[in-house]
């Protein structure tokens, strides 16, 4: 992962190499070896390059160029440990040499010496690698900032996105730990524990913690919604409906709560009430696929084929190739079959099968 960044750094050095083989101050013999090393590097013959650059350092022990080249060649040959001493020597000779800081930062990070790498990466503003190093040293907040900054330049870099998610998770955990430490009996602490139980499918424990949280602060937005989700996960739809209803009373503008309430009522077979709430959820936040799918189901059960068809068609337009789109095609096939629209039903079934194959569900 961090190697992506390393390669970028090496490329930068490579560009530097194009102009520096004629670097002033080197003896003709050292320049010859330097050129031979650069040529070998271009041919990806790193062993030869290492040997040539080592000769440069022996001939010119006071010039940082040979040491930087040698460190670079080691890194290209994945010998990160061996790269460290020459790069450190280069920095002893020229403490502000950016390329040496950059390479040394990467070399140390690759070896797991994150704390040592950080000052070097900071010096050259290498924010991506710096963020990664900061995850390892537990500086979650700084890591998030730096990785976000790096993503401004490369928004789709999968490595950066991965590390940002790790850093965010760590930051979240640190915040939660701080919350728990600050007031272990607070409503929020119970909520945190409840969520943790919910995520690990320990539903009875989650239910208990949410109830504690609600006893302490019954008016906190989101608590009823989350407790309702616990009940929904265990198919206790009557209780789920009660909680979602409580949430919609607290937050009448919350589309998620309206959707969950409508869906719970749908599961209970309360078709008309479900339809009403799902329509409200759709108004609050249009084009939410889950709401539309449940809306289609509710309309279908209520005998309103036209509304059902509209809702499922909107799901397909939004979801295109997803599993939910496949479900919408299946629902449409059933609807058309019931209407004796054989060709339309067949077309939808074909789409359903195509998407099942596409999503590996068959």
């Amino acid at each position, binding site marked *: 992962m961090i190697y992506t960044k390393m390669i970028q750094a090496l490329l930068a050095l490579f560009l530097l190499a194009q102009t520096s083989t004629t670097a002033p101050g080197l003896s003709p013999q050292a320049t010859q070896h330097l050129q031979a090393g650069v040529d070998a590097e271009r041919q990806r013959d790193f062993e030869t390059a290492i040997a040539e650059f080592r000769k440069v350092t022996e001939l010119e022990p006071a010039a940082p160029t040979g040491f930087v080249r040698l460190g670079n060649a080691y890194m290209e040959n994945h010998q990160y440990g061996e790269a460290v001493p020459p790069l450190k020597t280069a920095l002893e000779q020229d403490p502000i040499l950016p390329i040496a800081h950059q390479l040394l930062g990467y070399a140390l990070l690759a070896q797991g010496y994150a704390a040592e790498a950080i000052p070097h990466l900071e010096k050259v503003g290498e924010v991506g690698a710096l963020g990664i190093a900061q995850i390892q040293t537990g500086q979650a907040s700084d890591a998030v900032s730096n990785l976000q900054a790096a993503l401004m330049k490369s928004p789709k870099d999968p490595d950066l996105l991965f590390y940002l998610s790790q850093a965010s998770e760590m930051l979240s955990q640190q915040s939660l730990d701080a919350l728990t430490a600050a007031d272990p009996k607070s409503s929020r602490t119970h909520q945190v524990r409840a969520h943790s139980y919910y995520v690990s*499918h320990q*539903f*009875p424990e989650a239910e208990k913690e949410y109830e504690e949280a609600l006893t302490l602060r019954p008016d906190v937005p989101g608590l009823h919604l989350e407790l309702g989700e616990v009940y929904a996960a265990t*198919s*206790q739809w*009557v209780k789920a409906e009660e909680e979602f209803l409580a949430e919609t009373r607290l937050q009448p503008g919350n589309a998620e709560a309206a959707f969950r309430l409508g869906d719970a009522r749908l599961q209970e*077979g309360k078709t008309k009430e479900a339809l009403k709430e799902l329509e409200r959820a759709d108004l609050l936040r249009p084009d939410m696929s889950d709401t539309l799918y449940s809306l289609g189901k509710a309309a279908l059960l209520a005998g309103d084929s036209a509304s059902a068809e509209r809702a499922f068609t909107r799901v397909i337009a939004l979801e295109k190739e997803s599993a939910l789109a*496949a*479900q919408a095609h299946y629902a449409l096939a059933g609807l058309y079959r*019931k209407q004796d629209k054989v060709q339309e039903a067949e077309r939808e079934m074909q789409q359903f099968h195509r998407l099942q194959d596409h999503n590996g569900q068959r």
Partner: protein
Amino acid sequence: MITDRRERVSKALRVLALCLSMATVCLSAPSAAPVFHTTLPSGLDFTLQNSPTSFKFLIETMPGGVAFLDYNNDGLLDIFLVNGGRIASPTPEPDDFDRHDPRYWNRLYRQNRDGTFTDVTKQAGLANVGDGNYGMGVAVGDYDNDGYPDIYVTNFGKNILYHNNGDGTFTDVTAKAGVAGGGWSVSAGFLDYDNDGKLDLFVTRYLDWEMKLNKPCGVVTRQYCPPGEFPRVSNILYHNRGDGTFEDVSVKSGIAGKKGNGLGVAFADYDGDGFTDIFVSNDVVEQFLFHNNGDGTFTEQGLEAGVALTADGKKLSGMGVVFQDYDNDGRPDIVVTELPHQLQTVFHNDGHGVFSDQSLQTGLGVLSGTTSGWGLGLEDFDNDGWKDLFIVQSHVMDNVEKLDSSLHYLEPPLLALNHHGRFEQADAGSTTPIAGRGAAFGDLNNDGWIDVVTTQLGGHPQVFLNNGGKVHWLTITLRGTRSNRDGFGARVQVNGQTRFATAAGSYLSSNDKRLHFGLGSAETARIEVAWPSGIHQTLINIPSDRFLEILEPAEP
């Protein structure tokens, strides 16, 4: 939109017509609460030996069946119970399951006049279950039309057909009949698919599996493997030649063309073409609806009919199945039992060969969230004119709590009363959690109220005796002459209710072949019988509260 309105109006008119025909049932039906009490009648000392091991052999969690039959025609229902077998641990290859040991015998219990039972297994000639068989299910039908019910036992191994000799004994006629099957058979049932007056036989099969192919499954703890770990298999259809032998017509009928993980089977003529169709509940694959083409062949129509998948296009873990009309619209519907977080699915027959998933509308969404269903019955337990639902429950895995603390291996049964098409939970007479599997339904004590016998892994059967009430009922025994003698496949309508004559359905089990109807406060009944032979018969002003035998007329 116009079509929708027409549909709604049409449905409203149908309901109105139904109410008019049922008169008192719709308008003033007394709501007699079904009150079961559980009991273990004296003499019914059976224990289902499934022999669970740490190796989690799949067969361990699947038995066993139970049948209601009157084997000696004394007017009292007797009980046949299928046993598993001994699984040695570690298992020798091949394992013979020690079926010669009486602990592992299947058992036939004769009902005595005082409601007690006598074990007649040995004297009836049913002690011999062969070598290498681990018992699964049972089907009952009078395949030779001699007036005595015969017994077919399914096994992991070879199946057995016992011919009822009419003198209290049975003879193993498997070899002569040619119905041994093989592999892993599960549920079976007798039906007359070609309306030739002779009962044919359908057998579901689960997996291409052997003891030696068992493998470790599970991450946190060892579990029973999901069926997807093993190849699918086809089901078997045997055609009754009428000379005591059967022909395996699985291939030429088209049945073998579809491979699945068959567990349950039920029969009904869903499209009203006069030929019995077959529904097979499959575990984790698409459900099969074999449409009977009327020429000896079948076409699998599950997807086209809308019964292969749930309303969300998802696969079901189909276990048991029943194929009867729950909403009194005259068409057979399908209810399939499943694993938790899948609803017990109700496929409503919308007519024209199309079904719709109405699990939510019928209220099963709130009744079946975290439970697992096996054997089931759609029977009118409170005699109010609407068929109710009884489901035997338990998870497949005996260690499921370790994986999900909201689920339970042992569960009590579910009784859900039908209130005009919507099911609501009622007192099942037992809250004791058990590892329930098979279930058979019938009027065990001939009091006009439907009773239930269930099986449980490692335990005694549970008998749910219906305490009854004051409303009326009618129980019909069909006696076919041109049609098969049991009348299987006939459509019988009484005061607006419809039953499709069959002993099949549930899981691994065979029900009382008599057709029971709750009449509410109606004191008379109008009966219409559409026999498989094509003969239609109408009886009017039949007094309620009686057992009635209807003989098929010789001429239309």
